Structures are given as structure tokens and as C-alpha cells.
């Protein structure tokens, strides 16, 4: 009934890694926020949500899997609705539930197609049936799984629910949804495509790689444009799912080419980034929640200077930001380095044209990583550094101890997953080997040596020690004497205030212009005059066009509304008409039964 293999244990680790800190955090976060009854309900639903995720990854039967999958969706839907008086929350929850059900429809279709051959919903029976299926059907099944799980994971262009749903939920729920729940979709992808269906043609992997590259770039570019801290983080989830999928897609490509040990390496890279993203994204969402609780806003243009009022939150957020920007010696660095190495090692062993494609993947990942660093310089710099840009930011209060301890645990995970890379690598190798049926030599205790190509080694621990030594040397030689406080240089005016500071909009302007071919930025300026000659104030608004919503989703919605208009005529409110519909249906059914 239950399936306890290395893959399931790995996902248990991911779920528990974020769930426990999130639960501790919620004690502080919910304090004085809701009535007792509402609080109790919310916490119970949260527990049920976590339990459903835990059960999902050990289900050994597609039917059970589907039911738990739906429960998980419903619990998270309710949690997005926690702030149900807020219209935005209701809207977000609706978009979320509609989008995930489109995905679930594809999953149901896929499961029933396999059932036709296997006669059972058991994974082993399904897996056996998949080997004897016509290849065309397997291709269709792959596409169904990709759409079904891709919707939940937030692969572009199915990502549109993420930036709505994540920001509306309470912060620790966002941490759970973004850090863990969207990963269960990747679990599904690994379980059903790798283990049940079995990797088929080469184009499967290539499709996943292309989608991954698009998700990376679209996610990070939209994140750069976003000035709401939680929306920004939600777009980064799209980006990071892309990076994870780069690893998984590579593993698929290598499997189709019978390069088992490379496939295992790529799988490790993907899984490593998966657990890393759970840790740092969980941490960042918790940090954003602290900022919201301390200041009452998530709009980074209204924040600033929080590092002095909320020193611990700032420090933890910085750790998360460094992790997600792939800076050594923290965890994001290890997994992005592994992914790049998987590309490098792969290029030596695949056909030339594919190797050139790998080069594009490398370039895309490097660009993504650079843009992500830029985005987190913006997010951390504007939110926490310099002077407060509003009175609410000026009167910010540090988060209570429960929230800080939740963040501390995840920050420790971000650091630990980086410094202990060789140990984590060996553990993940166990999981990857069980998926890819490969032999993989494990590496040493201090440095991570990649076997397929020999001598490439890296050790975040050593990097940390060298950095520390350099830092200490510089400190001893250059510091340890008196410094003087002075005013910031402002061209001699000596009236620096928060209005002199650079804003997030200005920070991202270069990117807005450079990626204008995709973002379609527009701006509106308005002069408010108190006389013909004197301009009292000036309003400047700038925004970008979301092409996915404008051209794809709104077009489909428009079409749906028009079809609904046509069907409306049949439902005119006359009881006689409805009775005749029932009669007609009955007759139709009788005729059908007679014929069949």
C-alpha cells in the first residue's frame, strides 16, 4: 500500500525541512492576528496540508495518489483563502484552483489511459503495462504528465497562478507552498515519467530542457520587475523550478542516450537544487512575513533601513538571498555548479548539435544566475539598507522569538547544505542511483569529486575557510583602528534624506529597457498644476505588460465567455423549457441504450 523507496524518503526530508520551521514560525506570526476559532482552524488545515504532502509521496497506487493530490490542492486552496475578507485573496485562490484543476484533468486522463492497459492502479502494474504500450501512446502520456505536473510546478507558460496565490497566503504557508508543494509536482514528474512510464525518445528530455530554460529566464525577468516582496519571491520560484528542471531534463536526455552515470549526476544536480530551493525560498518567504508583520507593507519602495530595526530578520534574509543568488559557500552555489558540470560533462559525450544546445543551456543558466543576483541586490538593498522610505518602515519592530527561531533553522539549513556538500551529494547519489540505475562512486568527506570526468573537485568548506582566512588577514592588516562617522557624500548639500536614495524602480530600469522586447514597458506621467505656470507635483507611473496573461489567458477567457453567452440562451429561466430538456435527455438515453 505504501511505497518507501529512497525517492520517497528524500521528499519526506524536503517536506519536513520546511514544515517544522514553518510551524514554529506560525506561532509568532499568528499572534494577535485572528480570533481563536479561526486560528485553530487555520492551524489544523496547515497540519492536514503537511500530512497530505507527506502521504502523497509514499502513495503506491495512482488512485490514492490522485485523491491525496486533490486533498493537498484543497487544503492549500483553503489556506490561500485565510485572509478571506480580502478580495485579492479570493481572486488569487480562484485562479489557483482553476489552474491546478486543468493540470489534474490531464493527470486523470493519463492515469486512465494507463489503466486501460494495466487493469490496475498499482505503480508496479502500471509500470509493467507502460513497457508494452504503443510508443505513440507513451509520447502522449509524457505530454499529459508534463502538462499535469507542470501546472502545479509552475512551468512557463502554466505559471500564472503562482504570483497570485503565493503572496496572498500567510507567509509560512507561502513558504510551504513555494518551498515544498510545487516540488511534489516534480516528485510526480520523476515518479511517473522516470519510474512508471520509463524515459522514451530523446525529444522528451529536450522538451523539458527548453521549457526549463524558458522558465528560468521568464521567471527571473518578471521577478526583477516586481516590487512586492512576496510576488518577487513567487516569480523566483518559477525561475528555480526551471533550474531544477534543467537537471531533470538533462537526466532524461542522458537516459535516452544510455549514459547512465551522467544521468545520475544530472539527477543529483536537480535533486540538490530542489532541496536547496526548499530551504532558501522557505527562509525568504518567512523573512518577507517578518517584514510584513514589522512594517505592515510588502511594497519595497516604502521600505528601507530595516537592517537597524530588524537586525536578525535582515541577517537571515541575507543568508537566503545569498543562497538563492548561488554565492559560495552557501547551498545554491553547489547545485548550480553541479548543474553546469552536468552540462559540461555531457557535452563531451553527446552528438555535436546537442552539445551546442547544451552551450545555450549553460549561457541561459549563467544569465539567470546573474539576473537573480541583481534581483536580490535590489530586494535586500532597497528593503533593508540605507534610510527608511516611509514612517511605517521607520517604526518597524523586530519579529518575535518564535518567528526568528523558525528562520534561524532554515538559515542553518542553507549554510549546512552548502558546507556539507560532499555528504549531501553522497546521500543524493543513493536516491539518483535508484532512479537512474547507474553506478556512481561516492566522493570524499571534504571535497566533492566528480567521477565521470576524473579530477574536477570542489569543496565549499575549503572555499569558506579560504574566504575566512582572507577576511581575517585583511582585518588584521587594515583594521582595528578608529573610524569616524560622517555624512554621505551628496555634492555638498548636506541634506540627504530618503528621497535621495535610489529606488527599486530606478534599479530595475536598465533591465526594463533591455528586456523591453519581452516586457513591453509603458509609463504614464501626469503634472498636477496649481496654476498655469507652476507644477505642484508630478506623478510618474511605469509598468510592464504581462504577455502571457494578455495574449494567452485573457484570449482564452474571452472565448469562454463568448461560448457561455451562447449557452445562456438555452437557460432562459422557463420551467417548461427545463422540463422538456429532461424529457429530451431521457429519450436520448433510452435510444442510446437500445442501440448499444
Amino acid at each position, binding site marked *: 500500500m505504501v511505497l518507501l523507496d529512497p525517492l520517497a524518503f528524500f521528499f519526506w526530508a524536503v517536506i519536513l525541512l520546511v514544515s517544522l520551521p514553518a510551524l514554529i514560525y506560525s506561532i509568532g506570526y499568528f499572534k494577535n492576528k485572528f480570533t481563536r476559532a479561526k486560528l485553530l482552524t487555520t492551524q489544523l488545515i496547515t497540519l492536514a496540508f503537511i500530512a497530505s504532502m507527506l502521504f502523497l509521496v509514499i502513495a503506491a497506487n495512482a488512485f490514492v495518489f490522485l485523491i491525496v493530490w486533490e486533498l493537498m490542492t484543497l487544503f492549500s486552496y483553503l489556506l490561500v483563502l485565510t485572509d478571506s475578507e480580502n478580495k485579492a485573496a479570493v481572486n488569487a485562490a480562484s485562479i489557483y484552483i482553476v489552474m491546478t484543476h486543468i493540470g489534474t484533468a490531464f493527470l486523470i486522463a493519463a492515469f486512465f489511459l494507463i489503466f486501460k492497459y494495466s487493469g490496475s492502479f498499482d505503480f508496479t502494474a502500471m509500470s509493467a503495462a507502460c513497457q508494452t504500450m504503443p510508443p505513440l501512446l507513451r509520447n502522449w502520456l509524457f505530454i499529459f504528465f508534463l502538462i499535469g505536473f507542470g501546472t502545479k510546478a509552475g512551468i512557463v507558460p502554466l505559471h500564472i497562478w503562482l504570483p497570485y496565490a503565493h503572496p496572498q497566503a500567510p507567509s509560512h504557508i507561502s513558504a510551504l507552498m513555494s518551498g515544498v508543494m510545487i516540488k511534489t509536482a516534480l516528485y510526480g514528474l520523476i515518479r511517473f515519467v522516470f519510474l512508471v512510464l520509463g524515459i522514451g525518445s530523446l525529444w522528451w528530455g529536450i522538451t523539458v530542457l527548453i521549457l526549463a530554460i524558458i522558465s528560468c529566464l521568464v521567471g527571473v525577468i518578471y521577478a526583477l520587475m516586481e516590487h512586492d516582496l512576496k510576488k518577487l519571491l513567487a516569480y523566483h520560484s518559477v525561475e528555480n523550478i526551471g533550474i531544477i528542471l534543467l537537471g531533470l531534463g538533462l537526466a532524461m536526455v542522458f537516459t535516452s542516450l544510455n549514459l547512465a552515470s551522467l544521468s545520475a549526476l544530472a539527477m543529483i544536480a536537480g535533486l540538490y537544487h530542489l532541496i536547496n530551493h526548499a530551504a532558501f525560498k522557505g527562509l525568504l518567504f518567512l523573512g518577507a512575513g517578518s517584514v510584513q508583520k514589522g512594517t505592515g507593507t510588502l511594497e519595497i519602495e516604502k521600505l528601507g533601513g530595516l537592517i537597524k530595526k530588524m537586525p536578525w530578520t535582515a541577517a537571515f534574509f541575507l543568508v537566503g538571498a545569498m543562497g538563492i543568488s548561488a554565492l*559560495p559557500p552557501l547551498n545554491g552555489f553547489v547545485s548550480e555548479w553541479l548543474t553546469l558540470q552536468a552540462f*559540461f560533462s555531457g557535452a563531451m559525450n553527446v552528438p555535436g548539435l546537442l552539445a551546442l544546445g547544451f552551450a545555450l543551456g549553460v549561457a541561459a543558466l549563467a544569465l539567470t544566475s546573474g*539576473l537573480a543576483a541583481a534581483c536580490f541586490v535590489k530586494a535586500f538593498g532597497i528593503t533593508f539598507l540605507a534610510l527608511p522610505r516611509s514612517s511605517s518602515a521607520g517604526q518597524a519592530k523586530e519579529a518575535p522569538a518564535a518567528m526568528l527561531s523558525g528562520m534561524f533553522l532554515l538559515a542553518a539549513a542553507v549554510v549546512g547544505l552548502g558546507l556539507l556538500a560532499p555528504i549531501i551529494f553522497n546521500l543524493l547519489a543513493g536516491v539518483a542511483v535508484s532512479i537512474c540505475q547507474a553506478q556512481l562512486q561516492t566522493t570524499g568527506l571534504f571535497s566533492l569529486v566528480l567521477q565521470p570526468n576524473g579530477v574536477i573537485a570542489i569543496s565549499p568548506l575549503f572555499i569558506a575557510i*579560504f574566504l575566512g582566512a*582572507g577576511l581575517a588577514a*585583511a582585518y588584521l592588516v*587594515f583594521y582595528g583602528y578608529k*573610524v569616524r562617522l*560622517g555624512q554621505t557624500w551628496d555634492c555638498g548639500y548636506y541634506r540627504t534624506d530618503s528621497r535621495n536614495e535610489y529606488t527599486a524602480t530606478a534599479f530595475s530600469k536598465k533591465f526594463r529597457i533591455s528586456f523591453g522586447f519581452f516586457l513591453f514597458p509603458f509609463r504614464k506621467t501626469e503634472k498636477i498644476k496649481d496654476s498655469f505656470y507652476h507644477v505642484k507635483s508630478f506623478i510618474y507611473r511605469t509598468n510592464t505588460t504581462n504577455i502571457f496573461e494578455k495574449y494567452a489567458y485573457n484570449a482564452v477567457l474571452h472565448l469562454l465567455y463568448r461560448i457561455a453567452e451562447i449557452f445562456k440562451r438555452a437557460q432562459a429561466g422557463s420551467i417548461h423549457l427545463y422540463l422538456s430538456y429532461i424529457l429530451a435527455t431521457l429519450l436520448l438515453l433510452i435510444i442510446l441504450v437500445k442501440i448499444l
Partner: protein
Amino acid sequence: MTKLLLTILKISLVVGLAPLASGLIARIKNNLRLRRGQGILQPYRNLWKLCGKEDIIPENSSWIFQITPLIVFATSVTAILFLTDNLLAIIFILALGRFFLALAALDAGSAFGGMGSSREMFISSFVEPAACLVIFALYLTPGSTWSLTHLLAGLSLLIVILAETTRLPIDNQETHLELTMVHEAMLLDYSGRSLALLEFSAQIKQLFWFCLLAGIICPLALLPYGFCLLFIIIVIAFIEVGIAKYRLFKVPDLLVFAVILALLAIVSALLGV
């Protein structure tokens, strides 16, 4: 043991000679412009002078501002350590220094710092793909024999170096004009020893990149390593004298060109030319 000694020697050589490279470039540039120019040891004197002055810390800033020079220095030195082993890791290590420098620039709360910070991150996000692809190309052609790959990769890396060492046409070290400065804008609120440390780190990073390029073109030019370094220094000086600064929005075009050169290097590596 010998390996350890060699590593220490390598680090101390690069660290010790880093200001000299800057001095040489400045001198060659000045001579090309028919000026007498400063002595090639001037950067050492500048650093010494700055070390004697007191540090003024902006009152709005936080500990990020004070720790940044140390981190930037540590990353530059660590990058040298990995020079021959693991090029890919270096890109990430240098990114750490840049991340903190960009944060520190925002920390003082002046618009200049913000400008520098934003421009630096903008440029660097286009530099990283080119740098990674150059490393990819080198990875595909191990060994150091003459090849087209090395030539193309070297050219691509040269553009990367112009960006990373804040040279024309991407940045200009000789001006403090707010319309143009990138790296200087980030350092604007630093003074005394912190400034010395940051400038020193930038010089170390510069020599590190020159060493990397020298390693690539050495087999091409059939010259000893030291001559290759000198050659690169002269080429950079000529480029700086002969070219005007690009508009910020033209910089990505140049860097995309570097990406394309690196892609061509990869193509030639795959074809085995």
C-alpha cells in the same frame, strides 16, 4: 609541501604585482596620448597614502558597508587560489564580492551608489554567460596546443575582461562623472583604508583575469607567460586609448558579441578545429 609553497608563491606574486599592472596600463595610456604620465609605481604610493588616512563611515550605513571591503578582498585572493584548478568556481566566488559591493553601494543611501550598484549588476549579468561559455569551450579542448578555439575563446575573454576590470568602453576608471561611472560610483562613499582595500582588490582581480587570458593565449603566441601578460597589458592600454565609452544600453550588444564569440569557440571545439 612543495605544492603548498608554490601556491603561497603564486598568491604572493599576483597580490604583490597587482598594482604594478595598473600602473603599467596607466603609464602606457599616458605615453600614447603624448603625456609624460605617472611612474609605474604610482598605484603603490596611492595605496600607501590611503592607508595613512582615516576612514569615514556614512552615518546611515550598516555593518554591510564595513564588512564589504574585507569580503571583496577575500574573494579576490581566493579567486587566485583556484586559478588553475577550477575556473567555474571562480565565477561564483567573484560574484560573492560583487554582490556585497553592490549592497554596500546602496547602503550609504546616496543616489550615486544606487546608480553604480544597478549598473554593475546589469553589466555583470551579461558578463557571466560569456565567461561561463569561455570556460565551457576550454573544458572541451583540454591540453594547450594551438587551436581556433583558443583564439576565439581568448577574444571573447578579452571583452569579458574589459567589463570585469572596469575598462573602456564599458566603464571608465579615469572619471567621476555620474553619467558614466560604474565601479567608481560604488566606491564613492569609501575612504581611507577601506578604499585602499577595495582598490587593491580590484587590482588583484584585474591581474587574475590577465593571468587567465595569458594562460589561454600562451600556446597561441608561442611566448613565455610573462611576455603574454605584458602583451595583454599593452593591448588593453591601446583599446582604452583608441575607443570612446559606450552608452550603457550598447554595452549588452558588446557582451552578446562576446557570447557569440564564445559560442563559435565551442563550435570549433566540437568540430575539432
